[in-house]
């Protein structure tokens, strides 16, 4: 691997229109200077803003009731407490600050569930840069509160009407804006995906998660964890939670994808009713990188599905795909039902309402209690406030073990 991690084994690379390549070279240069070499004290300022604006460091909390349930030590890395309610701000703040150092005058970003969009809008307001967020029209209508938040923070929200109107289309549309306005605009990509140097850079901004967790674990338990579990959509919270443990050979790293309603693919309809690219996808090229994808035999990208919009993406970060191929990371998946049950379980047992994305990690623990080592860290990538309405709706459709009837109090 080079310092800038252009490729991860076979994966990664820079599959973008020529118009963007100069910007990507400029970004690579800025990444190497500011992020890797802390030029002009960039990383110091980043860390300070993460602390003062974001609220870091965040606790590694022992989960008393889960520990009892699984008869092991379960610790929660509380990214849900980061400003904005998810790990997303680590990256958004890093990139917006970098854009400022680079002299860019405008920020754009895509968003699916709206978590990355809200994080970027917050960071842009904090740093005083104008910001436009592309969001599929369908997602806009599914995630109203996050749309309000972005607008309240002064960002424009641009509806994307092509395709099914979800994350995949929003990324494509943001790339088009970038190709048009590349000279003064920085594209803040929302996960460890896209062309190099994005996957490495986004990972580096999120690596603070495992940097803190590793120290905290040593302090609180006297050693390293046996298992680290994180959900994986694009994989940014995942790589953030894994990065500083990759060299710790005895720590198992588990990336839990969305199994959706089924792992089977309906090629005729162009639909994969899941988002399990690591577990079931094939190598291909999408949105600037070679990685594992949900695609049909021709290479057309499938519509993915997950109960959690933040995992609902047909690709995954190239580095994660590589680490899975290498056997360093274990790819797992958990279906919609199990994630929903885990959402209810954590809320009830621990007083923490997780994001539906995060709930997948807890669903995996519930299904694999015997696979847990003596000390397990789960990355609580976000809080579930954004998911309340859909959880209620989805819970009513199902018979979810241990779910409360949340609606009964209304008359």
């Amino acid at each position, binding site marked *: 691997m080079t310092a800038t991690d252009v490729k991860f084994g076979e994966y990664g690379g820079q599959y*973008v229109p020529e*118009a963007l390549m100069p910007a990507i070279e400029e970004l690579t240069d800025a990444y190497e200077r500011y992020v890797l070499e802390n030029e002009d004290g960039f990383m110091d300022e980043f860390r300070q803003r993460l602390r003062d604006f974001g609220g870091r460091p965040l606790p590694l909390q022992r989960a008393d009731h889960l520990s009892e349930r699984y008869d092991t030590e379960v610790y929660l890395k509380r990214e849900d407490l980061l400003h904005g309610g998810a790990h997303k701000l680590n990256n958004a703040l890093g990139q917006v600050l970098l854009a400022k150092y680079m002299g860019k005058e405008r920020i754009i970003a895509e968003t699916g569930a709206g978590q990355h969009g809200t994080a970027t809008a917050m960071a842009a307001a904090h740093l005083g840069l104008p910001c436009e967020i592309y969001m599929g029209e369908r997602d806009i209508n599914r995630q109203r509160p996050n749309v309000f938040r972005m607008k309240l923070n002064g960002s424009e929200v641009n509806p994307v009407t092509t395709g099914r109107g979800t994350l995949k289309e929003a990324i494509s549309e943001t790339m*088009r804006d970038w190709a048009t306005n590349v000279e003064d605009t920085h594209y803040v990509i929302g996960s460890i995906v896209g062309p190099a140097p994005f996957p490495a850079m986004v990972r580096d901004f999120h690596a603070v998660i495992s940097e803190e967790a590793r120290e905290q674990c040593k302090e609180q338990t006297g050693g390293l964890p046996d298992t680290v579990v994180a959900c994986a959509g694009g994989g940014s919270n995942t790589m953030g939670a894994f990065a500083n443990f990759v060299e710790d050979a005895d720590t198992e790293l588990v990336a839990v994808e969305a199994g959706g309603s089924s792992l089977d693919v309906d090629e005729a309809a162009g639909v994969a009713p899941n988002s399990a690219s690591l577990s079931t996808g094939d190598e291909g090229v999408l949105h600037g990188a070679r990685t594992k994808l949900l695609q049909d035999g021709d*290479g057309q990208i499938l519509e993915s599905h997950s109960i959690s919009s933040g995992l609902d993406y047909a690709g995954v970060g190239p580095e994660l795909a590589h680490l899975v191929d290498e056997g360093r990371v274990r790819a797992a998946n958990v279906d919609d039902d199990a994630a929903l049950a885990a959402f209810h379980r954590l809320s009830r047992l621990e007083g923490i309402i997780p994001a539906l994305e995060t709930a997948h990690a807890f669903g995996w623990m519930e299904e694999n209690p015997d696979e847990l080592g003596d000390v397990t860290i789960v990355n609580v990538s976000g809080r579930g406030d954004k998911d309340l309405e859909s959880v209620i709706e989805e819970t009513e459709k199902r018979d979810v073990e241990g779910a409360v009837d949340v609606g009964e109090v209304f008359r």
Partner: protein
Amino acid sequence: MAENEALNEAFAGDAAFVPYLAAGDPSYEASLEYVEALERGGADVIELGLPFSEPIAEGSTIQEAVVRSLEGGMTPERFFEFVDDLDVDVPLVCMTYYNLIYQYGDDEGPRPFVEKAASLGLSGFVVPDLPAEEAGPLREACDEFGLDLVFIVAPTTAGDRLKRIMDQVSGYVYVQARLGVTGAKDDVSDQTGASLSRLREWDVPKAVGFGIKTGEHARAVVAAGADGVIVGSALVDIVAEGHEADTPVAETAERLESKTHELKQGALAGAGEDPESRGESLAESEPT
């Protein structure tokens, strides 16, 4: 680097005209008629789009063409049948995204796709999401089968990047007239002259595209020093209008033919002008 005779020859005249259509838009049969109409109108080379589900370099006009074509059942296999069924004599360049090339033939990389394209007489490729950095394997396969690999040079391309592209490009260089995505515009970008002058030394034909819509645009671009003009969205618009209005295929084909004719004539007119005065000529043409 192996070159394909056909493309070289197509650019041998005064000013080449290179129209684009998405294969299978809006249906296999109609699309065959439309592409053949381009040749009748005077096309020198035809860029034939093989639609990909995530066309990140396209504006809304071509995105919609891609959707129509995919909904009509277009696939890489059908695309090759389409090429086989086409009755045109001008060279064909396949324009598509890298994942389709890559996936063809059981993940063996680009070679099987290029082999198949070569067997059907295609002349080359334009792959908008494949910059010079990632083009190695495709370039090799093209060399092996004697096909051209066209690269795009953007207004932002400069310095080392120009050299890197120059080293790999063959057939013609696609000079992107403005930043952004494909789509017809009401003026000609004033970046065009500057873009072209950077490429004066290159020994490959220079075809300008992105946003060109009228014969007058085409004239201005050639007058500014281009060897050819590439037009996509303005033609796709005609297909879309015909589709929406349920116009008989023959009538839409007629319109495509005459639009092609207009553009080709514009290009030729530009070629007749004094190369010395080309800069001003471009300035005069906008805003129209």
